[in-house]
């Protein structure tokens, strides 16, 4: 028998989709039964109270969580998010319900044993509710009390060699794709770069001094599986400079139907015979491909590495050999309003240890943002406010054609008078006669 009646939450279980309410009820029942005889360190009925509190929020139409608080572990300004309920007498199990962020391993590779250890720890010292993975990528532990925070932190760091992630006005836990560990498209070792920078910038991760959050994300190729271009203040996307490698025999095998296109991904129904013209060449965004004498040709100078042809014919086309990454800056994906994509800052930079060139770009961007950024202003907003040109100045990067989407529209890189031989003067009154404001 549930501790609280939850008729409104029960409704959420009636849809065709998996329901978090069912999951929570299952967890509440598991804790009530406690078949494993766990010596719960926080109230056993925490999940029942969580359901009750949520039901009350639906009834009242307002949240019953308070905003933030002073909780953390010693020496860290992030990784723990204080959550307190404003109905502690009614729902004592969730009077404290703090979130802990656990830094996910690079590429999210972990063993079943490691996961089991984390879950055992959280069953003992927390609610047992996890979120795999939060939007920052972390493993999220949902709900524990203040006295358990240091205990969890001690066990994580001493037993599992595992750190907390980032929260607050910090560098957030850097996230990357699986990269060269399993993917032939990866143009650089995303896991190595992610791990290296995570270690390098420990202070930025754990001790907040930024105007707001700051995210790094690492994609091995322009397929952008981590979606860094849409949500990381600085995204690192693998690319290459030379030709896409073409295996003409394999191209013919795709055309002849011997190899299924898209790695046989769309085999749920019959889409008809593979048509290279329709499915590849005509879909090329820069029209840089054509067939000539039975051979596929690509004009590399026009290719913008959209990955479509490689995705459709992975056995015939492979990424080039002169590999590195592009750095984009200023993306953000807030919940309510103001999403924006990253702008290309560095078209190509080698991704080789010890990554000094990359660190130089990062640190010059941070120096500028820390100095000039307003409170709660993301890097992308500062770029909009002070101009992309200012970003180029502070990073010492010369404006180049890749910074401009297309000629003669939206040119946000301007000449300054001192950069033009002879300078210029203009009579503004005369100009306004012909060009009104």
């Amino acid at each position, binding site marked *: 028998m549930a501790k609280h009646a939850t008729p409104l939450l029960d409704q959420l279980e009636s849809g065709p989709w998996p329901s978090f309410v069912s999951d929570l009820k299952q967890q509440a029942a598991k804790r009530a039964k406690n078949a494993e005889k766990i010596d719960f360190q926080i109230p056993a009925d925490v999940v029942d109270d969580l359901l009750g509190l949520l039901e009350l929020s639906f009834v009242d139409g307002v949240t019953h969580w*308070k*905003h*933030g*608080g*002073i*909780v*953390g572990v010693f*020496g860290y*300004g*992030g990784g*723990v*998010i*204080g959550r*307190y309920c404003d109905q*502690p007498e009614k729902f004592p199990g969730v*009077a404290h319900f703090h*979130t802990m962020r656990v830094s996910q391993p690079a590429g999210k590779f972990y063993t079943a044993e490691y996961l089991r250890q984390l879950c055992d720890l959280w069953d003992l010292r927390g609610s047992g509710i996890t979120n795999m993975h939060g939007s920052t990528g972390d493993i999220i532990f949902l709900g524990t009390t*203040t006295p358990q925070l240091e205990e969890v932190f001690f066990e994580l760091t001493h037993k599992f060699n595992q750190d907390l992630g980032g*929260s*607050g*006005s*910090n560098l957030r836990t850097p996230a990357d794709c699986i990269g060269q560990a399993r993917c032939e498209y990866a143009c650089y070792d995303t896991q190595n770069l992610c791990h290296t920078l995570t270690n390098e910038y420990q202070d930025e991760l754990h*001790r*907040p*001094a*930024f*105007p*707001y*959050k700051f995210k790094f994300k690492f994609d091995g190729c322009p397929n952008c599986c981590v979606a860094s271009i849409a949500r990381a203040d600085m995204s690192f996307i693998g690319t290459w400079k030379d030709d896409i490698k073409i295996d003409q025999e394999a191209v013919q095998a795709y055309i002849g139907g011997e190899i299924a296109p898209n790695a046989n991904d769309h085999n749920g129904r019959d889409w008809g015979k593979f048509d290279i013209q329709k499915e590849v060449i005509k879909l090329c965004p820069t029209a840089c491909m054509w067939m000539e004498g039975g051979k596929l040709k690509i004009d590399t100078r026009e290719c913008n590495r959209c990955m479509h042809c490689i995705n459709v014919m992975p056995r015939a086309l492979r990424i080039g050999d002169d590999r590195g990454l592009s750095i984009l800056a200023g993306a953000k994906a807030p919940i309510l309003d103001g999403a924006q994509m990253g702008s290309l800052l560095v078209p190509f930079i080698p991704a080789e240890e010890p990554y000094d060139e990359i660190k130089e770009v990062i640190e010059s961007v941070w*120096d500028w943002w*820390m*100095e000039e950024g*307003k*409170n*709660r202003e993301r890097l992308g907003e500062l770029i909009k406010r002070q101009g992309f040109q200012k970003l180029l100045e502070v990073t010492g990067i010369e404006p180049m054609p890749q910074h401009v989407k297309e000629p003669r529209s939206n040119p946000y890189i301007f000449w300054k008078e001192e950069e033009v031989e002879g300078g210029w003067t203009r009579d503004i009154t005369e100009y306004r006669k012909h060009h009104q404001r």
Partner: protein
Amino acid sequence: MEYEEAKAKIVDELQRKSKTKTKFYFSDLAKLLEAKPRDAKKLVNQMVTDGALVYWSSGSTTMYSLPGVGKQAAAEHEEKEE
């Protein structure tokens, strides 16, 4: 700026303002110290380690305050438990 001098400056100023304001952004503290963000960060974090300041976090934004100042403890039922 020497650490002790910086600490005294921050604590004095935050105490002076504590009737009207109890939480401060990092940039407020950097301005008080008249230091570059990276230098200010070292000083401010040392103050947190020493217990002269505490972090306050909403989850997305971090602020700093003097320990015990503001209505945090009573409002969050911390006192009751201890």
